[in-house]
């Protein structure tokens, strides 16, 4: 600060004293900040120095200063995960010995399984089945009462653990529908006839089927399809053959979709989750899927 004279340095327009500094005829007014403001400012400076000391702050050539507390986000995350694990461990170990039926009967275990299963479902299953389990063409809806491989607790568990047509699990659900059209087992006309007949099982035809076509279709169905799908098209969960006489379709309820499937069937694949998830998670997923609404007793 230069020693300038301050006497009578009052700005004539505003009546405010000046600091005595002058640049090209402009004088700086002296409107000081309140003292409390200055004090708070100094406190924040001191506080900031405290941060440098205890937290990572300054870059160095090979990294940064660690600070007295050696705090990192990874450590914090680890601590939080341990905390959560510790809380879950009050209940989670009971899943090791409990059977699926035991879990369903115990309200506390059931609630835990539903919550844990919901998280696991969103992590592992939602990509194909949808976050609400509603599925899509080729991916079954898990909320309804139709199950290709069975909707009882142990059946759902087996499907999740071993998958469907999973190449790496010998116990996987395995089924294959023959390519009736591509391999020349049925003529194009017969495929059309039997497709019409299949549609008639659930009353989906656009126009009522003539009796002659119905008889012919029934014959072809009995000879080629009934072995797996059942005489009335009711399906067979042991073979993974979907029911054809209900309102639900894995792909679509149109004639084209049915013809395409008979001609050259699509075969969906589900991974064997038993190879990736632990026993507790598999049980929780089973309970969750079972309680979505379609679980069978």
């Amino acid at each position: 600060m230069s020693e300038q004279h301050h006497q009578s340095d009052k700005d004539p327009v505003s009546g405010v004293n000046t600091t005595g500094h002058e640049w090209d005829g402009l004088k700086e007014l002296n409107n000081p900040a309140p003292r409390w403001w200055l004090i708070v400012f100094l406190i924040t400076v001191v506080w900031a120095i405290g941060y440098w000391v205890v937290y990572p702050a300054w870059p160095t050539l090979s990294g940064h200063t660690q600070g007295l507390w050696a705090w990192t986000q990874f450590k914090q995350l680890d601590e939080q995960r341990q905390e959560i694990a510790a809380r879950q461990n009050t209940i989670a170990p009971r899943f090791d010995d409990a059977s699926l039926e035991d879990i369903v009967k115990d309200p506390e275990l059931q609630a835990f399984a539903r919550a844990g299963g919901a998280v696991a479902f969103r992590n592992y299953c939602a990509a194909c089945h949808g976050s609400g389990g509603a599925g899509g063409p080729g991916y079954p809806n898990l909320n309804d009462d139709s199950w290709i491989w069975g909707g009882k607790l142990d059946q759902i568990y087996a499907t999740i653990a071993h998958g469907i047509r999973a190449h790496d699990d010998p116990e996987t659900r395995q089924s294959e529908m023959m390519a009736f059209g591509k391999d020349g087992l049925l003529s194009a006309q017969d495929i059309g006839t039997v497709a019409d007949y299949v549609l008639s099982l659930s009353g989906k035809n656009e126009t009522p089927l003539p009796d002659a076509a119905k008889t012919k279709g029934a014959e072809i169905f009995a000879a080629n399809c009934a072995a797996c799908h059942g005489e009335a098209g009711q399906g067979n969960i042991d073979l993974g053959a979907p029911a054809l006489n209900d309102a639900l379709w894995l792909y679509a309820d149109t004639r084209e979709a049915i013809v395409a499937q008979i001609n050259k069937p699509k075969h969906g694949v589900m991974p064997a989750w038993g190879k990736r998830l632990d026993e507790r998670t598999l049980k929780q997923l089973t309970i969750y899927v079972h309680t979505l609404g379609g679980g069978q007793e």
Partner: protein
Amino acid sequence: MSDPDPAIDLAGHDIQFFEKRPKVYPRDATLKGKFRRLKWVVMAALLAIYYFTPFLRWDRGPHVPDQAVLIDIPHSRGYFFMFEIWPQEVYVLTGLLVLAAIALFAVTSVLGRVWCGYACPQTVWTDLFVKVEYWIQGDRNARMKRDAAPLTFEKVWKKLATHVVWLVIGLMTGGAWVFYFHDAPTLLHDLLHFQAPTGAVGWMAGLTLSTYFMAGYARENICTYACPYARFQSAMFDKDTLVISYDRTRGEPRGKHKQGDGWEGRGHCIDCKQCVVVCPVGIDIRNGLQLPCIACGLCVDACNDVMDKVGLPRGLVRYDTDRNQRARDDARACGKTYQENIRIIRPRTIYYAVILLVVGGLVLYALLSRQPFEMHVLHDRNPLYVKLSDGSIRNNYAIKLLNKTHHDKDFSVQLVDAPQAQMKFVGVDGNIIHVPADAVSQFRVSVDFPASPLLQARRTLVLMATDLETGKTTNVESLFVTEDKR
């Protein structure tokens, strides 16, 4: 303002980079004054309410806190004597806050800033802190002299003692606060045995320091610079609002007065400055109504005391309305008498009263008509609906049943006006739901409608819960969806 700006030290050689506010040294107002006495009474009553309320008990039965006023944050419950609220009913608190605000507006429109002058915590604690200063350090002149004097042993211990007492009061203030959030006797025991929860200790420390700084240092600056209420109170003022006023036509021209001199040709103000030195916000009321004035009336007491001594009528400084002041001045100008007239009933007060009654009625209605149970129904959105193998349509719902009583209850839940539909609870046989005392139970419910061309894309679905103990019912409207509407 005609005060010299303390920041500008023209005689010195350095320029200050901060503005030091002049400290206010209120003289301990005479105990004879009725407003001073009123302030003591109000302070005693308010502090008593604040410190003792948490220790009041109120029997609510077993397993429920018996503290009359308690905000139980871990269990998310609020207790106020016979009333109990859940987080869902926090609108009652909103109503109470609105009620408090309107009541404040109504009082302000009639009596001016009485809240500021008598009841505001900032005023009450500042008053207490100034009194502590007075007890330990003496009155205004002694304090000013000591502050200007160099450091002596006597100055050090008196200052130290003042701050220690302030901190103790602050600690009690913060201490009382946390009692509203815990069982008070238990917490007191824990505090005395150094076993109190960290949260409570943290709050106490914070409130101790804030009390210390607010009432010890910030004082009138809060009212003048920080308080939003002080800023918008002028919106509630009108010509009939009581304000502290100086009777200018009677007081001026002011001047010193010797005993025995006459009063001819001069005003009644003897310029003794007693109204200035007692003022807790450091203003001169003779300059007229000013922004920092909190209407505490201490200058009224001081002036009345002086008027008594010099044998003049009281009321040179007084609570009066703008309308009265003008009427009086006009009357004096033409040598007439005038009639004092305090109008309390006027449009402003009438509509404040109406709002007060309406909001008060609503809050009371909400509290008295409180249902002992509640049902919430949330329609699943993912998936919106499920088609079943027979073509029927299923919708899923999450149902919450709130049992606000202090004993277990059973409820039945059924559909209203949907005979064709089927309802099923997931994991429960039948439709009887058990909800433990003072708890919320959550259930999943599926509702199936058979396939029918008559089924609308969307229809409302009404669910009814029946309290099997009392037979009371509650209906909740939800939605049933049968197809995507895109």
